[in-house]
């Protein structure tokens, strides 16, 4: 396993160096991808190795940065799960990037992009491997910074700099909170290694536990995109190159989940029931609001970014239900809920990665992300359309794809909670189930919109008219992820059974979770519910094949008449007659008008002679961005106010600065004196 570990490092390092040194653009793109693919494959192998041998992989370099306990890596099953998840998406994204980044040739530096991508993947892979606080924070920060530079790739685009600013601010606020959480934890520990933190956590008071947990939740939540800390996602994800968006949205935000699990469940060893309740509430809020905002988006990648907020919400509902059940002592139920959350994390990585890659192909082919300018792409990009459809079906939770399995499991893990006798649990679970059901339905509507408006009907602009299919490397990358979506769905039973090892952080959880899978059936504790993804897939396959055959036989007997698509008998059909993305969402905009508070702006230009002849119509509708307007705008104004006030200190006079130095020195000496006495 040490070999695999080094191979992973070497792969990514090679990718970074090759990107910097290779001659010519083509070589740079190839080198970047090769290194990243080697690194990603090695990381998957390493993760599988940890699963297979049930052993923890450890590697220490205490001499490196010894002031803060050195660099240490410790990969247990929980970390390995997230490492594997990184690798699973990283490999296709790297392959995709080889083709996709060709658009940047001559405009932006490919070398910089390639090196940053490999360093991003490297640090991101090492986050779940970290064995002490220093290593964790180093890698976390490395991941944040490299991804910031990746977001800034298209820096000439108008919104990119703004997006990068939001991302940087949110992620660093998060790091500050995480750092505070770790410092509080480490106060009583011998060293900052996770082993010692775990031991020290037992000695901390319950209040301290809760303070650490809330700090960590806020810190990691800002990375995960939990509402109301999600504001950077819909800005940064569209701005980044598409394979980077896929990585950020598919993988990086999951490391926020990893952080919460690592600190809350592992280091702190779980907590009171309200932790779980808090997670469920925040998760359900993110899920419902995320999908509601996704529905209103006409920018394909922003829609996907909001949908990531929704899915992170679902994951947190699972994690929250797990920790709630744990605190109530219902270990088997907790196991199901946690595996549902984790499995959804894995599945979301697969289908959201694929969706972003698909959106990237669309952007690559047409140069726009505005769905109202797209349409008709299914004929021009048939492969991309097929892959995008697969991922849309998966994210909408349709069998036999993977989204269905994890959402089913999530529902089944919450339903028993409705019968719980503990106070507040039953209503909470009922509300959570309701929120989940609402989310599922709206998500399906959202992806009908995303797929339908983008790929069906006739093109709405010349750019969409002349679109071309993605290059081979891009198609291969999308194909891998599409197969992963189907595989994770059909073969869910053995995979879930294997995942039970991940939950070894708490005694009894693993054993309880291993019960989920048996033969072809997935079953929740006490056979509360049973489902077989493989049999459903088989049944669907038989039905589809039967219908197909039946149609063929009938067609052979009766003959086939091929007609035009029915368009209400119109003489000509133009794109202007099509349903737009805005129009598709209009019914929901009305239903949820309380939330959106849409403002409509309709200006019509009539012909000077007669009002029956309209020259132009301009329609604009905006929804109230609640979080930005009422949470962040005052906050930003406040911070800027402080900034302006502190500027008075910066007088520009050297005398004043010397005075500050003396005052600081005296204050320090004073502190020493007080402590000495």
């Amino acid at each position, binding site marked *: 396993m040490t070999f695999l570990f080094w191979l992973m490092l070497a792969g990514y390092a090679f990718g970074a160096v090759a990107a910097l040194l290779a001659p010519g653009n083509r070589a740079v793109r190839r080198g970047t991808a090769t290194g990243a693919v080697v690194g990603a494959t090695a990381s998957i192998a390493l993760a599988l190795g940890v699963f297979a041998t049930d052993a923890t992989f450890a590697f220490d370099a205490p001499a490196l940065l010894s002031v803060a306990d050195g660099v240490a890596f410790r990969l247990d099953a929980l970390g390995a799960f997230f490492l594997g998840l990184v690798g699973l998406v990283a490999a296709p994204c790297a392959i995709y990037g080889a083709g996709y980044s060709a658009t940047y040739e001559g405009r932006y530096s490919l070398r910089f992009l390639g090196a940053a991508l490999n360093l991003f993947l490297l640090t991101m892979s090492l986050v779940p491997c970290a064995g002490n606080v220093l290593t964790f924070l180093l890698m976390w920060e490395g991941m944040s910074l490299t991804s910031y530079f990746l977001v800034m790739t298209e820096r000439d685009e108008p919104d990119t700099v703004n997006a990068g600013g939001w991302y940087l601010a949110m992620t660093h606020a998060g790091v500050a909170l995480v750092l505070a959480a770790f410092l509080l934890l480490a106060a009583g520990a011998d060293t900052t290694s996770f082993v010692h933190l775990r031991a020290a956590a037992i000695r901390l008071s319950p209040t301290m536990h809760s303070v650490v947990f809330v700090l960590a939740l806020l810190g990691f939540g800002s990375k995960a995109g939990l509402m109301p800390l999600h504001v950077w996602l819909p800005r940064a994800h569209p701005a980044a190159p598409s394979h980077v968006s896929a990585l950020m949205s598919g993988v990086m935000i999951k490391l926020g989940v990893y952080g919460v699990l690592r600190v809350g469940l592992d280091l702190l060893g779980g907590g009171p029931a309200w932790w779980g309740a808090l997670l469920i509430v925040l998760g359900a809020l993110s899920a419902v609001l995320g999908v509601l905002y996704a529905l209103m988006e006409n920018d394909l990648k922003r829609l996907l970014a909001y949908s990531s907020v929704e899915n992170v919400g679902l994951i947190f509902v699972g994690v929250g239900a797990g920790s709630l059940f744990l605190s109530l002592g219902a270990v088997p139920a907790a196991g199901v809920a946690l595996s549902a959350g984790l499995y959804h994390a894995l599945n979301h990585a697969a289908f959201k990665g694929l969706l972003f890659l698909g959106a990237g192909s669309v952007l690559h082919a047409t140069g726009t992300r505005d769905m109202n300018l797209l349409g008709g792409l299914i004929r021009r990009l048939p492969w991309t359309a097929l892959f995008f459809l697969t991922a849309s079906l998966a994210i909408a939770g349709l069998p036999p794809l993977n989204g269905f399995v994890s959402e089913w499991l999530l529902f089944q893990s919450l339903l028993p909670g409705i019968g719980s006798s503990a106070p507040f649990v039953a209503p909470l679970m009922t509300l959570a189930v309701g929120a989940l059901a609402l989310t599922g339905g709206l998500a399906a509507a959202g992806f009908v919109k995303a797929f339908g408006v983008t790929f069906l009907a006739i093109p709405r602009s010349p750019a969409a008219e002349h679109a071309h299919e993605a290059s081979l490397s891009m198609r291969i990358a999308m194909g891998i992820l599409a197969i992963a979506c189907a595989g994770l769905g059909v073969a869910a039973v053995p995979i879930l059974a294997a995942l039970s090892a991940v939950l070894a952080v708490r005694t009894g959880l693993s054993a309880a979770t291993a019960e989920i899978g048996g033969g072809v059936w997935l079953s929740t504790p006490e056979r509360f519910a049973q489902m077989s993804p493989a049999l459903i897939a088989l049944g669907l396959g038989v039905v589809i094949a039967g219908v197909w055959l039946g149609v063929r036989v009938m067609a052979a007997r009766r003959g086939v*008449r091929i*007609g*035009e698509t*029915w368009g*209400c*008998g*119109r*003489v000509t059909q133009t794109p202007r007659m099509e349903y737009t993305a805005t129009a598709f969402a209009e019914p929901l905009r009305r239903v949820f008008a309380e939330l959106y508070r849409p403002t409509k702006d309709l200006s019509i230009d009539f012909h000077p002679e007669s009002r029956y002849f309209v020259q132009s119509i301009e329609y604009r509708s905006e929804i109230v961005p609640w979080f930005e307007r009422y949470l962040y705008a005052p906050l930003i104004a406040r911070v800027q106010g402080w900034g302006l006030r502190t500027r008075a200190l910066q007088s520009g006079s050297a005398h004043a600065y010397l005075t500050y130095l003396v005052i600081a020195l005296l204050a320090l000496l004073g502190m020493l004196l007080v402590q000495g006495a």
Partner: protein
Amino acid sequence: MRLFSKILQVGIATEPLAPGGDEVVRLLHEVDARARRLFGRALAIREVDAGSCNGCELEISGLTSPVYDSERFGIHFVASPRHADMLLVTGPVTRNMAVPLVKTYEATPDPKLVVAVGDCARTCGVFQGSYAVAGSVDQIIPVDVFVDGCPPEPADILRGILGAIGRR
């Protein structure tokens, strides 16, 4: 509450069936029986207004009123020719509606029936020779049965429908 007071104020608004109503009921039952035998389900009709004065439409919508209530007897008006067994075409075919009528006809799955309702549909009626008229319905698409009258009564329309199903 307002609903109840309205019910009290207005009282019973339904009328007894006009004389000759038994005939209509008999026709309806016959259509029902034939359609059931032919399709094993209700007859699906798509109405196409190819340029009528809407007098015919009034009578056709009369078919679905509480008096005739044709839906009950398996005469079902559908929203797309894709779902239809029969087209009910009214009026002279105007220039603007000629292509849509042909497209509608083509979009209707085979086997299909066409019933042309009203005098206009057969002869263009008072609109004959107008610059805006392309011709009678049978000049544009094949017609199975004509229903005469300006406008024809619902009972006549029912007879036309019956005649068309009877041809098969």
